[in-house]
């Protein structure tokens, strides 16, 4: 029983077996931080496979769940050794009037499997709800998806309400969705635009650095 096996179980989405093995490895004295590092690399590889559709959404999802399961087991020990790095807290949702949720779901999954804590607000979400939820969670990011030109104004509205409430600088505002663009992000004053989910884990921390 080794780290390699743990990797394999996580990759195959075998949450329960992976948890048992993680427990055992801990008892054998394997460094929990090392386990997390290895698993994070595995997750990144799984992410690449998904980006090329060599594996499909349910598989990466199961894999993400197994990773979360293992992280739960390891967390108490990690806290002792300095804790696991959380890359950021995100509220995400699809703006008001819009029922297109597939892209948002993928972004959520990719962020979660890359060390972000994500609160999913679903679709057809009122602008103010994004903000209230972000405040409640003390989020770093407010991320919104819009798939229709007719709902893109919702992304602007989020920023306008943040300004009206005088809390614009408390959050980084990220936008995405097929009809959106860097140009639209610039126009409405969003902090970040991502054309693809796969670029999100790299781009999010970059804007946080200049917070």
């Amino acid at each position: 029983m080794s780290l390699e096996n743990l990797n394999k179980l996580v990759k195959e989405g075998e949450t329960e077996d992976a948890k048992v093995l993680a427990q055992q490895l801990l008892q054998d004295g394997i460094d929990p931080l090392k386990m997390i590092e290895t698993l994070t690399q595995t997750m990144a590889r799984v992410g690449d496979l998904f980006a090329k559709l060599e594996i499909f959404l349910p598989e990466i999802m199961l894999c993400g769940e197994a990773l979360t399961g293992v992280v739960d087991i390891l967390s108490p020990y990690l806290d002792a050794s300095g804790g696991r790095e959380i890359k950021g807290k995100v509220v995400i949702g699809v703006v008001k009037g819009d029922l297109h949720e597939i892209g948002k779901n993928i972004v959520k999954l990719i962020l979660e499997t890359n060390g972000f804590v994500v609160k999913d607000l679903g679709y057809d979400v009122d602008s103010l709800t994004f903000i209230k939820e972000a405040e409640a969670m003390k989020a770093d990011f407010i991320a919104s998806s819009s798939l229709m030109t007719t709902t893109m104004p919702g992304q602007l509205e989020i920023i306008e309400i943040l300004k009206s409430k005088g809390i614009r600088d408390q959050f980084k505002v990220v936008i995405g969705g097929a009809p959106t663009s860097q140009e639209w992000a610039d126009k409405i004053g969003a902090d970040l635009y991502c054309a693809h989910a796969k670029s999100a884990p790299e781009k999010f921390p970059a804007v946080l650095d200049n917070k």
Partner: protein
Amino acid sequence: MSTVYRHWEIIDRAKTGKFMDEEDFLPKRFYPTLKKLIKKYEIKYDPQNPCPTDDSMADRVWQAAWELFRDVGYYNTDSHRIIEVADEEIKEALYMAKDQYIVGGGKDACLMKHRSVEDPEPPFCIMSPDITVDEKYHQSMCMAYLKEPLLDGLCGPILEETFGHLIESGGPTEISGCIQHIQNQKMAARLLGRPDTFMVAVGTAEHDAGQIAVSNNEWGVQKTDARLVGSLTEFKTADTLLNRSLHYAQYGCFTGSLTGAIYGGWCGGSEGTAITTVAYSLIGLVIHGAMFNQHFPFHLNYVSNTTRELLWPIAMAGQALSRNSKLLYTSNGFANAGPMTEMLFREVAAHALVSTVTGWHLWEMASTRNKYRNRATPLEARLGCEVGHAVARQKMTREQANEIANRLLAKYEDRAADAPMGSEYHECYDVAKALPTVEHLDMFRRVKDEISQMGIDFLY
């Protein structure tokens, strides 16, 4: 008769059915059931044969789809409850379903009837750009489609602006945009002399209110027309959608169920996409009382369905539905490439070819990944429908279609990820006259010649 007599019971079940957290529905209920059924029924994707001929597998896909619907149910995201149906209800609905309808009115009326695999009767051809266009091109584009000889039904382009106002989802501009949409479309049909052409309208309606606002037998969507009700991917609905199917039935027009199973998403691969597509036809019939099902399975990354991993499920689903039911269903093409590119013409040809020989009606053609404003034209739809008519009339077999599909795929498949975007409508159409430019028509003819040499006997 459609199955709308069940509507009230269905609506009840959306309130009283089994509770489930939305987060759990797909990973814990839909996907495990689908996975189990793929295994149980030994469904296996065969990349060599984009147009497979395995009758027994087609029948197993049907069985798997039936069980998928029965065992998973349909989730209402507003009530968080599952609408479940019993075998008996599915059987009853299939018995009650009509295998043909006359749609459109007067001299423009057309018959849409169930097709068999390798049916010598040509498919019913609905043409649609499936995209948004600038307000200034909207009427011209409606007219350009209506000028297509093989058009049996029109689903017009979608508006993003109405008289200088950006349409905002759910607001008054949406209502106005919807009225403008149907009036442009009807006006074009009248001017052209096909006033009662069958229409599927209006795509500009994002909400139930927008659809309801255009139900008017004099100036709006008529009872001889159809409307669509979508599903949320996969197997989910919401009150705003159930409102639509009920309204369509009460108003008295035809209902079409709009679904796109996603390859790479919760359906997994080609096998799951085929089964889910067939199950959606049952959902459309039993839940929404649909008289036809409009399917656009697509690739999660490309948002297209002309590569082999999507042609195979389209072919399988068509055969499963054709052999086991008398339902009506349209195959909606989604291409990677944009207008006035050879690649787009080849893509639409492959899509129409495979769909036609496997029992589908046609709905052509979303171009440029269905993503960019003004990037679709009637000419690609024309080629698809000409292919459909030709292969039906020449009684093409699935084996022959498979061979031609492979030859077409060889010409474009490797460009799926970086397909050319081509031109916008006004760059390859004379907007004032609503006709293709000479250059565009030349390209159409050139590719048509090439395809004809592969063995398709075009009728003219």
